[in-house]
């Protein structure tokens, strides 16, 4: 799975995710990527793209939950994403997310996740493991 989230200087947010799915998946299987609120979501608070075991991401409504936790608990993007990823059984999910204020987070509970990010203040990161 691949994905990207972005926010501009005006706080406009967008999320995109694309995938081939699981190796040896049944023909006709739908994963989390195209399910709004599971593998992909964006609203006025944040944009989220997830990766991992689709069935668990769908059950966890992972991407929407990040936005909901921000909205209803009033916490930061980083706290919300960490909480949601922590609710999924270990070894099954990762996500990238940005907030309308330019906050970035890339939590995962797998061994690694191929990921990269950058912000306007000059910070950038390319990483695989913790």
């Amino acid at each position, binding site marked *: *799975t*691949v994905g*990207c*989230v*972005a*926010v*501009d*200087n005006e*706080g*406009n*947010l*967008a*999320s*995109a*995710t*694309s*995938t*081939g*799915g*699981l*190796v*040896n*998946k049944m*023909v*006709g299987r*739908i994963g989390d*990527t*195209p*399910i709004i609120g599971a*593998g*992909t979501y*964006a*609203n006025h*608070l944040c944009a989220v*793209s997830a*990766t*991992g*075991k689709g069935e668990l991401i769908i059950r966890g409504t992972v991407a929407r939950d990040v936005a909901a936790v921000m909205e209803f608990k009033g916490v930061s993007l980083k706290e919300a994403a960490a909480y949601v990823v922590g609710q999924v059984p270990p070894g*099954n*999910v*990762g*996500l990238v997310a*940005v907030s*309308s204020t*330019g906050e*970035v*987070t*890339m939590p995962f509970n*797998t*061994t*690694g*996740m*191929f*990921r*990269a990010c*950058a*912000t306007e203040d000059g910070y*950038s990161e390319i990483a*695989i*493991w913790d």
Partner: protein
Amino acid sequence: MGWAIALHGGAGDIPLSLPSDRRLPREAGLRHCLDVGIAALKAHKHPLDVVELVVRELENHPHFNAGKGSVLTTSGTVEMEACIMDGKTKKCGAVSGLSTVVNAISLARTVMEKTPHIYLAFDGAEAFAREQGLETVDPSYFVTPENIERLKQAQEANRVQIDYTQPIQKEVKKDDAIGDGDSQIG
């Protein structure tokens, strides 16, 4: 407040011993895609354009599980999926079951912008892609030798695998013992 971008190329059981011939192309791909996204944001492109542009680049990179390099179904076919969403309007588009569309993410955006619907799948999605003039190719374009091997190993173990999965040690032959970051057996 300023612009920000984040992207991923999949998660899983990626061993710390990942060989450089498998790690470096992926890191280079991430760096390239990040640069593409940064340039687009600096050029004041809308985030919808930015994420579509970046995901297209990732889809075209054969080392990631999307577009060219997509993993295979039990039948040895590709069935690609994609989704795009705009935060301000909550407009979104999604597609599933694609086997010939080069960039699934662009079809998802076309669904968002040119239909009254959110989600198209399989034959209907393929027909819509042709109607809209999106680039299509023979399904063999998406299939890599590595993914044929991964499917074979997954079927031998009767397992499905996420993007990166270490081999099951008890079922690994001695010659296969070095983790390479790709799904091997499950």
